[in-house]
């Protein structure tokens, strides 16, 4: 239904930047969004993701750089001349027009006379055929959200921009709309660029996620890639939870780096270390809480050889149904988080118990030690809940 076969329909940002006086909202940034993909810009409030989106829409003028849609340079075009449409966070439905006219707005402005069939089809797509003659305020939040999507999609834009479109919905409805949006995107094949501060939302919906921080793209990749191979502590903490151990490089050989931490040794695959590692240098060793197994200290002998291991004492445990979350106090890291599936629960694993934490070395990742291990965690600057 759209020109998805047109090659070179990518969105390309080259050196795009935005400054307000002395404040830099977006540092010069290069980004390519492949045509037909579901792309997410993920970051805390004030990281520049919405500004980037608005520059693609034309609602914000970049201080430098260019915006390409396919081969066309649209940097100087006003928003009403760009083949791009936006779903706003507040939906911004026109209160004086009914649902039908809201959806027809873009078509009418482009001078189309017979819009009835298209509008009705679009309302069917978002399952609002019955509501055509209602005013926006008579619909529920979820319905309004779908009208906003329909109003933008009916124009067959080259790119659909979504600015925190699910932010105002409650959790259950949000999950439902995430799947719904994903379904619509697959159905129409239009490029979606989705701005969100919710890492789960970004990972559920997007093919590619760009994690933004302080006006820069921190890392870009598929959700699984970002989660398994974070290259900075910010990404490691913003997407899920990570444990960090500061370690010293003991020896490098073959495919593995051997590190010293506390009294013990840890193995890190060279390929998973994004920091320059030289013997004697420092590296941050990271591991996700769900990759770790807990064994009571009495059974330490049963742990297979070749696993990374650390000793500690359980400081806290909370049972949350599918798993139990432990906080382990260890000499190398005071708050080690471990998520254990509730398959065979060892009754000895209670607060105060001495335990051994062990995991497959392949699940270890290495980061540059010259950064805060708290970047991207909830207490740190810039990661308060976005409005």
């Amino acid at each position, binding site marked *: 239904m759209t020109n998805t076969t047109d090659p070179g329909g990518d969105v390309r940002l080259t050196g795009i930047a935005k400054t307000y006086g002395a404040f830099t909202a977006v540092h010069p940034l290069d980004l390519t969004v492949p045509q037909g993909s579901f792309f997410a810009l993920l970051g805390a409030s004030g990281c520049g993701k919405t500004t980037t989106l608005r520059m693609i*829409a*034309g*609602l914000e003028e970049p201080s430098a750089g260019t915006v390409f849609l396919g081969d066309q340079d649209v940097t100087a075009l*006003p*928003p*009403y*001349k760009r083949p*791009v*449409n*936006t779903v*706003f966070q*507040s939906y*911004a*439905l*026109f*209160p*004086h027009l*009914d649902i039908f006219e809201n959806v027809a*707005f*873009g078509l009418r*402005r*482009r001078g189309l006379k017979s819009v009835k069939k298209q509008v009705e089809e679009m309302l069917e797509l978002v399952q609002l055929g019955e509501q055509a*003659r*209602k*005013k926006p305020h*008579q619909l529920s939040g979820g319905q309004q959200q779908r009208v906003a999507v329909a*109003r*933008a999609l009916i*124009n067959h834009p080259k790119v659909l921009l979504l600015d925190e479109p699910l932010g105002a919905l409650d959790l259950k409805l949000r999950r439902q709309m995430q799947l719904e949006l994903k379904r619509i995107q697959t159905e129409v094949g239009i490029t979606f660029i989705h701005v969100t501060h919710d890492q789960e939302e970004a990972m559920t919906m997007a093919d590619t996620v760009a994690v933004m921080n302080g006006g820069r793209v921190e890392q870009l990749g598929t959700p699984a890639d970002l989660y398994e191979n974070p290259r900075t502590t910010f990404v490691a903490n913003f997407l899920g939870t990570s444990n960090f151990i500061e370690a010293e490089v003991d020896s490098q050989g073959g495919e593995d780096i051997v590190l010293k931490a506390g009294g013990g040794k840890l193995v890190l695959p060279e390929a998973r270390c994004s920091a320059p590692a030289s013997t004697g240098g420092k590296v941050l060793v990271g591991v996700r809480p769900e990759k770790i197994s807990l064994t009571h200290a009495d059974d330490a002998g049963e742990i297979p050889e070749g696993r990374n291991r650390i000793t500690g004492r359980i400081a806290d445990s909370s049972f949350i149904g599918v798993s139990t979350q432990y906080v382990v106090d260890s000499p190398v890291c005071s708050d080690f988080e471990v998520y254990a599936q509730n398959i065979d629960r060892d009754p000895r694993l209670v607060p105060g118990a001495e335990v051994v934490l062990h995991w497959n070395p392949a699940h270890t990742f290495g980061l540059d030690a010259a950064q805060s291990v708290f970047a991207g965690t909830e207490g740190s600057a810039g990661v308060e809940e976005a409005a």
Partner: protein
Amino acid sequence: MPFVNWLKRNLVVLAGLFTLAYLLLPNIIVTVFSFNKPKGRFNYEWQQFSLDAWKDPCGVSDLCGSLSVSLQIAFWATLGATLLGALIAFALVRYRFRARGAVNSLIFLPMAMPEVVMAASLLTLFLNMGAQLGFWTILIAHIMFCLSFVVTAVKARVMSMDPKLEEAARDLYAGPFQTFVRVTLPIAAPGIAAGALLAFALSFDDFIITNFNAGSTVTFPMFVWGSAQRGTPVQINVIGTAMFVVAVLFVLVSMAVGNRRSRQKA
């Protein structure tokens, strides 16, 4: 005590009815006396029912002339004040400029100033400028004092409007003019209409400022004031009643239209 209980239950209704009566009594008196056939020149005592005045509303010399002057002034003052006031309101809400705060407060000054003081100052101003007092000086004065009311009414409406709506319109292929006509104006319309109605009523009613700056022009309020010295023709009541009826009809029709529209949508 059934009566006390009944009173307790219906006190709110009774209070409402009394307040309504208090509000409407003067209008009723005006209406009733428009059907009077007074003895002598003063229409203060009920004599007998008559339709004479209704059959010949312009029967008193200069009455309809003054009414026409008032309606003309009210029309142009409403137009001028609404146009300027709406623009001022948009500027105050949408743009950040130097002296915006000052303009915001100064705009209320005409409302706060005692009318008679303003009237005298205006007269001084016009005389110093050598302006010919009459229709134009009245019109200028009316536009001036109606402005603050229009600005207040429109500003409240524009302030409650989400600026994202205009962005959405621009995003949906509406250029600046289309955005204004299709989105901004319709949403601001109730505020503009309220401001215009207020301006019309204020202008049509005004006596003090008009009296100072009218020269030899006579508006309807001035005519009533003047004739009250020498006797009150029944036709004044006829005009008053007619205005009242027109206003009530206007309100009823707009309410009916609004009701039907919201019922259609529901």
